[in-house]
Every structure is written in structure tokens, then in C-alpha cells.
């Protein structure tokens, strides 16, 4: 690499003969920054005095989050009736939001785990933040399946706990599977996230001037001491967790998709759901990552660490997954037509042209059309535009879940029981609140935790090479 070519050590004789093709990959850290600079840059975010903008954002986020709180209190005290659900449409926004948030989570795990296995070095500067996103998104998601039930106070019946009624959960139900999938997902994400943070916490601990910082970071860094032996086990554990998270992340949305695929309703009962949901999840996840990181990048001036290359890569993943999702949409229609089941056929015609046609076309335009813009370098390089499109992706993916859940339920088998669903004000506020809740958590993360894994960033810098850049 550029820095490596500068070193005055003679390359071995072999290379003289081979003449390797000139290696021109954009560097992952620009302007030949030093380790010190990286450490300074990242720790500074945590160490410097709390900026006023942070306080403003935090307070606003807190207010928004309170919507969820109030919504849930009202819900539990009064009954599910305060939501818009009705008889044909027994699942309204609650489940839509659940699937939406879970989906958001996926990018984090994907970046930190899958890309790690694929040895994608560029992941290093973005994985910490996206893992944080995963954890917080899953927390937001968890709220809905828990509170959408009629008697929350009996929620514990879903867990296999011995009781004096001598009766157990029913393990054939996708909802029961969700309990295991989601709780596992949350736990493993947190473990992975925390373990990755230990060395960085140690760094902050070592730099800390104030007593309480020393103690708090000291406790959480577990007495890490950058010893090679530590690194050895750490790296192994990290690799294994990555290896575990990869099948996990795929299974979670597969199982979430079972909530629909296992049911027998036209438009739900399809085998295409698992892959299609996973693709959608990654799609929306990367949308969210961009939505979060682009502002961070400019606020903290991380342009050298989150480079155009990163943005390009993410945009490309969005094109790919977006197209996958688009393919799934068209394939659903094909199967519905090819299967020649009149109920199935109608379900899809109804999706596109029936009482919820608008939601369908919002979904198509946001998920299938808008990402295609990323084919053009100009657009990928126009950061504000990328940010806007990433938001479209999020909107689109929320509507995808809405379309799947509601169009099918509102018009299923017997025309006599057809109905229409529209959310109540409580629905809307409860959902809006979760964004506040998410922001609160994310802001706290920015303020107190290293938003990039310093060690990993350093590893991909030329200085890290023990052979002084000899390839």
C-alpha cells in the first residue's frame, strides 16, 4: 500500500521476478493517519465535554420516547381495544412494527459477523455503531410482541416455567419460536457487542483522568491489559461469535417470517417468505446504518475513517438486496398466478389494486425503484441524496410488512368477514415513541462508549503489519 511502498526494506528476490500487478485499492483510513490520531479521535468523542446539541437531541428523544410509555400504560390498563385492531385484522401495527424493528437490527449483526467471516476489512470502522443499532432495534422490537397480547401480566406463560397448573407452552407455534429466536438474538448481539468493546473500554480506562471514569470503565473493561495472550483468545472468541451470529441472524428473520408463512391465509402461506424476509431485513438494516452513520460522520468529522468506499459498498449492498426483494415481489405474483388457487390469486390482485393499493405502491416505489438510483456513482457520492434514499428504504420496508399483514387479513377466505383496518391514535403514538426510545439509547451510546473499535481499525492500518508491509 501507499505507505508500505515507502519503506526502504528490499523486497525478496521472488517478487523481482513475479512483478505483481500494481495494487490500487483505496486505503481504508485516509491521510496516513497514525495510531495516536485514531485513538485521540475516537476517545475524544467520549472524553470531551458534553456538547449542547447532544443535550437538545437527548431531551427531545426522551419526550418522544414517553409517547410509547404513555401508550403502553393506557393499553395495559384499558385493553387492546384502544388500538385499531378488529376481527378480520387481529394483528395491526403492533406486529408490523415488530417485524420492522427486528429487520433493522439485522444489518448490525451482518456487518460485524458475516463481513468479518468474509474478511471484509472495510467493516471495521462501521461495525461498532451498527451493532449498537442492532441491540437497540431489537429492544424496540421486543416491546410489541410482548404488549400486543391481551393479558400482558401472563406473558410469562410463553416461557417454559414449571407452575402449579402443570401446563406448558406449545412449541408448534411460530410465536413460541419467536420467543426463543428473539431473546437469543438479543442476548447474543449484546454479548458480541460487549466483548468487542472490552479492549476499547480498557483504552479509555487507561486514558481516564477523572476518578469515576477510571472506576466505571475499569470495572467494565474487566481488567483487560492488551496482552498478546488476551488478544489470542479474544480473536478466537470473536471469530467464533461471528460464526455463530451468522446462522443466527439468518434464522431470526426466517422464524419471524414463519409467523406468516406457517399460517394458512392466502398471501401468507408461501415458502418464499424466509429468504425474502432475510433479504428485506438486510436491506432495511443497511438503510438504517446509512441513516445513522452519515450524520455521525459529519458531526464528529470521521471522514477519514468512514470513507466514500464504505458508503459505496453499502449502497451496492442496498442495490443487491433491494433487487432481491423486488424479485420476491414479482415471484409472489407469478406463483399466485401459476398456482391457480383462486383465493391466492385474489389475495395478490387485491394487494396491488384492492383497498390497500396505496400502501403496496409506496412499498414498490421505495423498495424496488429508489435503490436503483445507486447504480450511478454520482448519486452514491452525493451524501445528502444517499441519506434521503436510505430513509426511503426504511419507509418502504415498514410498508412491506404493513402490506403483508393487512391486505391479507382484511380480505381472506369468506367475503362475509371482509373488513378494513386503520390504526388508532394510540397505535401511531406508541410506534412513534419507539424511535424516541431508540434515539435515547443511541445517544447514550455515542456519549459513553467508543463508537468505533480502535483495535480493529488499527489492525487494518499499514502500521499494524509486523513485516513492515511486505506482502
Amino acid at each position: 500500500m501507499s505507505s508500505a511502498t515507502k519503506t526502504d526494506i528490499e523486497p525478496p528476490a521472488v517478487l523481482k521476478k513475479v512483478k505483481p500487478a500494481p495494487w490500487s485499492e483505496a486505503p481504508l483510513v485516509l491521510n496516513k493517519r497514525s495510531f495516536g490520531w485514531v485513538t485521540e479521535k475516537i476517545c475524544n468523542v467520549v472524553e470531551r465535554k458534553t456538547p449542547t446539541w447532544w443535550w437538545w437531541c437527548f431531551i427531545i428523544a426522551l419526550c418522544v420516547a414517553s409517547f410509547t410509555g404513555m401508550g403502553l400504560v393506557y393499553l395495559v390498563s384499558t385493553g387492546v381495544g384502544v388500538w385499531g385492531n378488529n376481527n378480520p385484522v387481529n394483528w395491526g401495527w403492533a406486529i408490523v412494527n415488530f417485524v420492522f424493528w427486528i429487520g433493522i437490527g439485522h444489518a448490525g449483526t451482518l456487518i460485524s459477523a458475516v463481513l468479518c467471516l468474509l474478511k471484509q476489512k472495510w467493516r471495521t470502522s462501521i461495525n461498532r455503531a451498527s451493532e449498537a443499532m442492532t441491540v437497540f432495534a431489537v429492544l424496540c422490537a421486543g416491546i410489541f410482541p410482548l404488549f400486543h397480547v391481551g393479558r400482558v401480566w401472563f406473558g410469562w406463560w410463553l416461557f417454559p416455567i414449571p407452575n402449579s397448573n402443570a401446563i406448558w407452552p406449545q412449541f408448534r407455534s411460530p410465536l413460541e419460536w419467536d420467543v426463543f429466536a428473539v431473546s437469543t438474538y438479543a442476548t447474543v448481539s449484546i454479548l458480541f457487542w460487549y466483548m468487542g468493546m472490552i479492549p476499547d473500554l480498557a483504552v479509555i480506562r487507561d486514558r481516564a483522568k477523572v476518578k469515576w471514569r477510571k472506576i466505571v470503565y475499569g470495572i467494565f473493561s474487566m481488567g483487560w491489559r492488551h496482552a498478546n495472550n488476551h488478544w489470542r483468545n479474544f480473536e478466537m472468541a470473536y471469530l467464533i461469535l461471528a460464526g455463530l451470529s451468522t446462522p443466527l441472524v439468518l434464522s431470526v428473520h426466517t422464524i419471524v417470517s414463519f409467523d406468516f408463512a406457517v399460517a394458512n391465509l392466502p398471501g401468507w402461506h408461501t415458502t418464499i417468505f424466509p429468504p425474502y424476509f432475510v433479504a428485506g431485513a438486510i436491506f432495511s438494516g443497511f438503510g438504517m446504518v446509512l441513516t445513522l452513520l452519515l450524520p455521525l460522520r459529519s458531526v464528529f468529522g470521521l471522514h477519514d475513517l468512514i470513507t466514500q468506499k464504505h458508503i459505496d459498498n453499502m449502497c451496492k449492498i442496498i442495490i443487491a438486496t433491494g433487487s432481491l426483494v423486488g424479485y420476491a415481489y414479482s415471484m409472489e405474483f407469478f406463483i399466485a398466478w401459476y398456482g391457480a388457487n383462486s383465493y391466492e390469486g385474489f389475495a395478490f390482485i387485491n394487494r396491488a389494486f384492492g383497498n390497500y393499493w396505496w400502501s403496496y405502491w409506496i412499498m414498490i416505489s421505495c423498495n424496488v425503484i429508489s435503490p436503483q438510483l445507486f447504480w450511478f456513482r454520482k448519486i452514491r457520492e452525493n451524501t445528502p441524496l444517499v441519506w434521503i434514499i436510505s430513509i426511503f428504504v426504511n419507509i418502504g420496508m415498514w410498508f412491506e410488512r404493513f402490506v403483508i399483514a393487512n391486505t391479507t387479513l382484511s380480505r381472506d377466505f369468506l367475503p362475509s368477514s371482509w373488513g378494513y383496518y386503520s390504526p388508532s391514535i394510540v397505535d401511531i403514538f406508541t410506534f412513534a415513541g419507539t424511535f424516541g426510545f431508540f434515539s435515547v439509547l443511541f445517544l447514550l451510546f455515542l456519549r459513553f462508549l467508543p463508537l468505533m473499535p480502535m483495535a480493529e481499525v488499527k489492525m487494518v492500518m499499514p502500521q499494524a503489519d509486523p513485516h513492515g508491509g511486505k506482502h
Partner: protein
Amino acid sequence: MIRENSEQIPEDSPEPGMKYWKSLDALAETPGFQDWIQDEFPQGASMLQGFERRGFMKIMAASFGLAGLGMTGCRRPEQTIMPYGKSPEELIPGVPNYYATSMPSPHGNIPLVVESHSGRPTKIEGNPSYLPFGGSTDVYAQASVLDLYDPDRARESFRKKENQEGDLSWASVNTNTLIAEVSEWTKDGNFAILADRSFSLARTKLSSELKDKGVQFFEYEAIDLARPEKLLSKGLRLDSDGLRVIPNLGKVKRALSLDCDFLGSREPFTLANTRSFMGGRKVTSPGDAKKMNRLYSVESDMTLTGGVADHRLRLDPSQTPAFAFLLAAEVISVRKGDQTLTKRLKELGKAAEIHREWITPCVADLCSKPSQSIVLAGSHLPEEVHVAVFLINQSLGAIGKTINYLPTNDSYEGISELIEKIEANEIENLLFVGGNPVFLTDSFVDWDRIRKKLKKVARFGYSLDETSEFSDLHIAQSHYLESWDLSRTWDQESIVPVQPLIAPLFDTVSDLELLLSLVGSSLTAHDFVKSMHSELEGSKLFDDFLRLGVLSANPSFHSSPIALNDYFDKTKIQENSVGADNLDLLLIPDFHVWDGRFINNGWMHECPNPMTKLTWDNAILISPLLGKKLQKENPGIGLIPEPTMLNKQNQIAPDNANFADGRQKAPVVLVKFGNRSIEGPLYVQPGLADYTIVSSLGMGRRKTGRVGEGAGYDASTILDQNGNRMVSGAKILKIAKNWTYKKLANVQEHWSMEGRAIIREANVDYYSKKEDFAQHMGAESHSPPMWGKDENKSLAHKSQKTPRGNSSYEHPDHNYENSDTPGRHQWGMAIDLTQCTGCSACVVACQSENNIPIVGKDQVMRGREMHWVRLDRYFSSAEREGDEIPSDVQVSFQSISCMHCETAPCESVCPVNATVHDEEGLNAMAYNRCVGTRYCANNCPYKVRRFNFFDWNKRQTDELYKGPLGKKNDEISSMGKNPDVTVRMRGVMEKCTYCVQRIQEAKIQVKVNAQRAARHSSGKDGSDIEIDNSDLKVPDGTILPACSQVCPSDGVAFGDLSDPESRVSKLKNDPRNYSVLGYLNTRPRTTYLAKIRNPNDKMPDFAKKPHSYREYHDKAYPTHHGEGHGEKKETKSTNGKGSH
């Protein structure tokens, strides 16, 4: 259920101060109560146990320590009540008793057997001893028990107080003092009583006694079902006061109804009619299909009768007379009757000549089976029509065979005479007994003027209403379940008792008691009835009479033929033609509230009108043609929705109303006729005569209880003093500059079956060619056999042995055979769609039996109605444009409730095992295990599961959104709850259980009896006695779920599938038997028998296949589209699956 625990009230807690509980404790001192403890009810104290444990028994516990006794005690009437044969001799706590009584109704008393849980009437059933009804009841009888527990009924008597501002308030008074006061009035001669119609012998006797005392007695009934009989006997110049039509439809093969809804709720004797007529449509083999009767209906409204009809002609009421005359002319000429009469009738019927091609074949058909035919005319039609119809039946020779004419002799003076007398100052004091005349006659009586002419006015009524506001005194009336009476059925075949199941809950008296004290008799109502009974001919023991509940009398029918050749000479030919600006207006009693008497009955309000599917409201019904016209002329009206793309593409049929978020948005209009008018929301009703407006009486009351407040609009202005219910020359007008709208709670937005094989129908000829046509419909006819290799095994074998699912892992048998607890029965249900008229009695019966809550209009509009039985109504029509709302429709009803699928989709998605199968094939729903994920409801293809979105049973329906702060329900309403069924709390799912409480009770009884019998026979300690399975099986027909027990046409069969001899097994083996959505392999235990129609191929509107079948065929095989009637399709579907 869990509700109770949350508000368990300890025994020692002070009583909650509910007025009537206090009064109960007071009542607990009354002699009757004490007596009863002494004699009747030794182990009364133990009642507490039985009661306290049920949700609704909290209240008892709340009253003093022995509330149980206190309550149950004073619930019991003074005199001993002989239980019906079914019930045990003495009252055992926890075991319900059954008592025979009867419900007064405008068409005679309905004989009943009432289930009573320790003095609390909870469920109404028909009395099978009265054969014409065969133990069935109508929707009103079912709902009437709720009125007993109506929180808004008059709990004591009142005296009106009017302060300076003129706004009135009521001061409560002891009832007896008021009665004493009123009986003073009888002394002077200018006292009159205006009573509602009653079939009570006791009242007749007393009223005559009153007349002797110089009291003038008048009667008024807005929907006077006795009117036609008066008209007829007048027309026929008979000396009897009336000549009542008593159809005898069992023998009928051909029937024609002239705007007569003789199967619906608005004509008298419909229970008997339904039973006998639908009996004539029962089909078990192509053989009897040939014998099946045929119904022609000529009607203006879309009635239930029209729904059953094989041929239906839409005709505006003003055109009906002409049609009747032409019909008469035809029949008489075919039957070689009097020429001149025929000629005259032809002239009169000129206007109907346009229907000639309909009439000729129809008459030919009627006359082909003369003595087995019948023609019936609607009660709102004019005298001439009734006479003409009499002549038709006479010349058909139907009289005495398919129809009887019963001379009736109860003359009475009506309201117009009363008014004249008041005008003439002959009356100063007036007493209203029952009814609600001030509200109903407002349009033609100037009550303000009348009031000035009257000195004192008293009102005897069930609740404070318009008439009470008109009066100074309100005397509280008892419910019929609190009263004694002796009365008659409509056909006067039987004399029936009205006996109380419960002492008056409040300070009320029955009408009989009132009249008794007015005549100054010292007898109690019971003694009076008893004495009257002893005078009856053929009467034996009073107790036996009460036990049986009926005493047959033999009325003598009119037989002598009548010649009326000159009758029609002075009848003038009316030339009036109908049109958009000259509409006919027909007033019918409202389905929900009849003439307003059920205005405060939540069950009736929430039971959807079978045709319009409206709850909590009535609407101004207009025809699609008129609707389209209005929509075209005023684009802003928003009456019919803009055709969507799917409509245009013929993917789905257009809705017949605008639905905003599931709420029907109906424009409110003014209908003007002469100087009168009505104002209400419009509703486009397929099947209505083009220029007819149908409007219903009884809604839109000004003064009601909380339930009926603001329900519907008032159409009483249509009435006039002659009791006419038809007006011509009506016009529809805008009420204000811009359109105003009313939100209606419609429970079924979509009226078309969309060619899905949900209700499967065929005509007799096709059915006789192809018995199993139903099995060749729907996706399952193309799928592999549902039962795998067992496809051809017997039903019993399938129901027990065929494992569910077909995977390679070990499956549970249906009956758990490999477990320690194999099922002894396999429950199942078969519903014969041919038998369903849509009377909706099953809906309310189920609600009453299973403690199903009322959710209120707002929640119904949100799609949260709780009925376990949903009566789906579909219209189908001949081929139509994609976005056209049809005018000529065939109606099909289907009652849908939990199907108890053997491979239930709801079960496998429940995460907590709250809904699982039991060993007898019931899909159990354990409310107390449910957490309320609602996944099961989503996954139910039939959408029969209902979720408690709120605490329906606890909160008032208008306080739901206030949560814990909302007002609680008045506890009295919970006294009527069935203690054998859990009262559900919020957040749990519920659904039809096949009345599992009845199943369990029956099984327990059988076991107990078997065990005791065996022991007695062995005489030993019992350890050696042998009891085998057969002793422990419940005999077929013992268990009747509420819906099947109430059904007038026996359309619902329930029983054990593992017993090949059971009725249900036999029905399920009928080739017509099919499963709804069978292709999903849910294997429902409730299956349906396809509907058979019996059209006449000579008729102009004859279609080779029922419309719904055509629609199905066109959707399923688009390539043969339009061959719906063709011969080719015939061959297509006969060679069944594979050919497509």
C-alpha cells in the same frame, strides 16, 4: 372468570348500597319468602355455594352474608310452581329447573319452557308440547329474558312533578297506593282504559267486568296483525268480528305469497309457518326433491320469505291489488269459475297485464295441484286483496286443506273511537295499559289538545316512555316472567298459562293484578287464573296444566263456501303509476325492536337484521335502480361508492354502500308524502321493488333507556288511524343544503360470494341427476382425497381412527385411543342450508346461553361484535356488469360458527396451549389459559373467533375507553347470566364451544345414572358391578346446542359421529354434505348440506342453475364463461374433477 377474583367481596363487607339489593333485604321479610324457606327450600343456605362461585354471583356475596339466600329467596313467587316434567321434583342447588310458561306477543302467546337457576330465569326455550311450534321460539322470545334484567326498567311507580321551568321529574311512589288511587277513578263513569292487544282470556274476562262497571275499554296496536281478519270478515259480510287465516303449510306443494312475509318476523304465526313449510322442503334423496314444495313470492320488500322463494317478482305495493285481481281472474278462469267475476277481475287487474308472462305459468302451476296450493296476502294490504285471495284459495279448493279460516270474536273499540269520545268530553280520566300509543299515534292524534281535555291520566307500563311523559302517574309493570295469566295461541288451538318464574324483582304488578284491583277483586292473580282454568272445558288438574304448559281447545273453522260475484263491482280501478317522484312507502315492524317494545334490549339491537345486516339502526331502504338514479342526479350524495378497478375488472362485486373504515356512511334524507315526512339514512337494498321505499316502525324513540337511546329514526308518521302501513306519492329530498350522513353499524360489508364455493346450491332437476354435485365443487374437488387412504371408510371410522395429518410420526387418534382416556363420543354438527330462512333465532339463543356480551354500536362499527354464531347473507344474481348492483337477486344464508376442525389451524399457532382438542373432537378454548395473542383468530379461515378487546362484561359500552375509570355495568344485568358458562374477561379469545356445558352435564348425568342403576341391580358395595362403554354413551338427541334447539325448521343436527345411527351421522352421509373450504384439509366437524332450489322451468325468470352456482362456475372455469345456463357446462361439471 378471573374478573371475579379481582373483585371478590368478602362475606363481611358492607353491602354496596345498590338500591335494589337494599330493597331485597327488605323483601326478604315478606311472607312469601319466609314461607318458601320453610316449605319449599330446606337447604336454601347452601345456595350460596352454587352462586357465589360464578362471576355474576359477586353481588349476592355483596349483599348481606346470606345474599345467596336473600336473593334466591325473594326471587321465588308466593305460590308453588309445578316444574315441567324434565326437571327434578325438588330444587337442588346447582341443578337448573325448567318451568312451562308463555310469552305474550302481538300474534298470540308463544308457549315456552324457561330454564331457571335457583329462581333466576336464564334461558328461554320453546315448549315442545305445543306441536305447531315444536319447541322452537323466535328471536324475540329468546331476547325477552334480557328485558327482565333491564337496568332501565321502571323499578317502582312514579308521580310526575313539573317545576316552574316546566321540565318534569319523577317522584317514586309505592305501587299499591297508586293503584288504589286509580281504582278510585273507576267509580265515576268517565274513565277509560286504552290497552295494548292481548290474547289473554283473563284480561278479556276482566275487561268485560270493567265494562259492566262502566269503565270504557279501548285497544290499540300499531302493527295490528288482527286487521286483515277484520277486513276479510267485513268484506265477506260475515257476522263474526274477524276471519283469521291459519295456514296449514305442511301439506302445501305450491305456495304464492302476495307481499306476505309469512316466514319472516312481521306476519303472525311465523314459527308454525316456518316449521311446516320448510318441513315441505326437506330433501334426503332426489326422490323427495321431486316432492319438494315450491314458493312464488310477489313482494315489494326483500323479505326472508322472498329469500326462500323459488321465484320472486318485485312489485310495488300499490301495484299489488291489480296483480291480485289478475291472479284471481286467472285462477278462477282456469278452475272454470264464474265468468262475469273473472271478467270484472280482469278489468281491475289491467295494470298487472305487464306481468302476464309471469302470472300464466305460475297460475298453471298452482292449479296443477289445486288442493295442495295456497295463496297468502300481506297484512298491510287492502280489504279487496284479502277478499280476492280468499276467492283464489276457495276456487283452488285449498280451504280446509292447506288453509283454514278461523272466525274470531273479540270486538273492541280502537283509538279513533277513544279520541272521538274524548273530543266529545265523554272521558275525563284515562289509563294506558301497556303499549306506547302516545309515541306511535303522534302523527294522527293531537295529544296536546287531548291532554287539555283530560283530567287525570295514568300509565301502566314497563319503563318510562313517551306515554309516561304524557301521563301524571306511572304504574310499574311486571315482566311476563314475573306474572300470572291465562292466554291463547294465535291459532286458538291451545290455551297456555303465563306463570311467574320469579317474584317481581321490584315494586311492580302484572296487568292482571292491576285489572283485578280495578274490578275490586280480592283474588290474587294466581287464584284468579286457577279459578278460570277450572272453568275451562277439558281442564283437569291445574298443576298438570302448569306442568304441561298447554291445554288444547278445538276451535271451529269456517267451512261454508261464499259466493261474492258482485263484491268487486264497486271496487274502482286505480290507475296510479309509480315513479321516482311517486314512490310507494311501506312501513314494517322493525326487525330489532318490533314496534318499539324491544327498544332497550341490547341483544335485539345487536342481532343483525338478516337482510340488511344492520345493527343498532334502521334505514330507509331503496332499490339499486333508485339508488343509482339518486347517485347520478346528486354526485355529492355518496350513496354508492365509485366503482373500483377490481369492480370494473369483475374481480369483486361493488359494495352497495360507502364504508369508511368499516363504518357504513349513509346519507340522511327526507322522505315527503303529502304533508307528512320521515327523515333517515338511505340504504340500497338489492331485491327491493324499483320504486318502493321500505321503512320500519319502532326505532327513533324519544324517551328510552340507555340502550335504545338514539337508535334509528322514527317512521311512525306513516301510520294513520285506519292502521294503514302503505303510502303512495312519496318523494326523496335533501334535508339541508349539503348532504348530512349517519354512520351505520353494518356487520357484513360485502354481499357477494364472489363465485367461491362457500354456499353450494343446485336446482331440483340437476340435483336429481347428480346427487353429489356439492362434492364436485370447490378446490378440494381437484385436490387429493382429504382422508388419504381412508377416503372411503365409514364416517364413524374416520372420526375415530383416521389419524390427523399424514406425516410419518405417530399421530394422536381422534379419540386418543392409545391414551388412558379414549373419547366415548365424537361430536359433530350438520347444517342443512335448504332449511335456513335466516330468522336469526340461533344468533340470540347462542348469545343467551353462552353469556355473550353486548359491545354496543361503536364497537360493532369497529368490527368487534362478539356473536359466536354469524349468519352470513349472500346475494347472487344473473350475469351483470362488473360494477352493477343487481336488482333481482337470490338470497342464501349460512350460519357460521366454530367448525371444530379436526386439524384445527388455530390450535397449532397458540403458544400457550390455550386452545387444543379434546378426545371427543371438541376444539376446546380454555379462557383462563389464554394470553390473547389473537394468532388463532388470524389463522381461522372461517373467522369465527371473537376477542375480548375490552371488559365487555364489566364496563358500560360507552365507557370502554375510560379503562379503569369507566363506569361498571349495572349488576342486575349480570343476574341473567348462565352460571354454567364462564364469564370472560378482557384480553381472552372466545368462540362456539358446541355448548360444551350442556355436553358435560349430559355426560355426567348418564354416568351417574348408569352407576346408580348398576349398583341397585347388584345390591352389593359396587366394587364388583360392571359398566361398559355403551352404558356411558349419551343417547342421540339428548344434547341440543342452543342453536339447534331453537331452530324452527330443525336445520341444525348435532350428535355423535362415532354412532352411525345418530341423526347427524345420517345427514353427514348425505351426498349433499360438504365442508366449507374443505380443500384446506381442516376437516371441520361442522359440515353443510347443499341448498336445493325448486324453480319452475315455465317461468320467465327460470335459470337452469342457481345464480351462485353460475357465478362459481364462471370464476372457476373462465374458459367456459357465460355457459352458466348452458347444457355444455352440465356435462363439464358432471364428469367431476380431472376434466378441468
